[in-house]
């Protein structure tokens, strides 16, 4: 697998890992119990997608998915600022969810045509799972589209969603990422690399 392809996969994997975390922050405190359960599945899918992508890159690099996911330093992550934001208002969360799914659909479509059959195959699998995410996002969009706070959130986050396609600026992170990384790796860092958990 070419280095460039690895970088692209890491971009998506890092996006999905961090977004998966942000989405799972609603587990237990979502606006409706039923929605709590549904949104948690979406978060799990995202982390699952990250894992599958890390595994592909890990094999090319002779490492493991967990080491890629957790043992890099914050500035080595390739996630976009959009997913790093802590958005604990439902309007903002759904706005990001809606915008992210639209942008993600475009890049998955490209990846499905990759020369590498493993990449193309995985992209197709992920895309099939994401179909459910898009239905969910659209359902909420339809419900919230007249709410001023939702409209405002969409406008505010749209430029950052567009930046998802901007590979050149990946690596520029928000201040939130370092704090998030510290806490995300605190248990793992408490023991030597390679310790089983």
């Amino acid at each position, binding site marked *: 697998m070419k280095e460039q392809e690895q970088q692209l996969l890491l971009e998506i994997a890092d996006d999905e890992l961090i977004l998966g975390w942000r989405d799972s922050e609603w587990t237990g405190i979502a606006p*409706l119990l*039923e*929605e709590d359960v*549904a949104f948690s*599945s979406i978060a799990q899918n995202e982390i699952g997608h990250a894992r599958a992508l890390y595994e592909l890159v890990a094999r090319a690099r002779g490492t493991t998915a967990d080491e890629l996911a957790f043992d890099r330093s914050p500035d080595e992550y390739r996630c976009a600022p959009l997913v790093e934001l802590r958005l604990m208002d439902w309007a903002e969360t759904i706005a990001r969810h809606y915008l992210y799914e639209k942008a993600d659909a475009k890049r998955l479509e490209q990846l499905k045509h990759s020369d590498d059959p493993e990449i193309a195959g995985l992209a197709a699998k992920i895309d099939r799972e994401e179909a459910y995410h898009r*239905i969910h996002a659209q*359902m909420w969009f339809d*419900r919230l589209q007249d709410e001023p706070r939702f409209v405002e959130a969409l406008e505010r986050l749209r430029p950052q969603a567009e930046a998802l396609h901007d590979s050149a600026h990946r690596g520029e992170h928000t201040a939130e990422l370092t704090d998030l990384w510290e806490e995300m790796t605190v248990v793992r860092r408490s023991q030597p690399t390679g310790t089983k958990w």
Partner: protein
Amino acid sequence: MIYEVFRQERKGQPLQHAGSVEAADDHFADVYAREQYGRRGESTALWVVARDAVIEIDDFVDELNRNYHRVDGYPLKEKLKEARERAGTAAAPGDR
């Protein structure tokens, strides 16, 4: 709105009432039922229906014990015994 959820565990099995979800409309009910009753692949099919659409019936009347169309209306033991004795094929005591 409350939606009742019926689930089928495997093909060929009957759909059974599994529970209910609260949802704003059919779209949300679809998503929520799917999650609560299928996120582990534990169901092959779900039927989701608004509670209001369910017609509930739990009062059945049979004042005159209409057993002519039930199995318990046909105790045949005595008649069979008599018929066997008549044919000389009555079972010895202790046989069935």
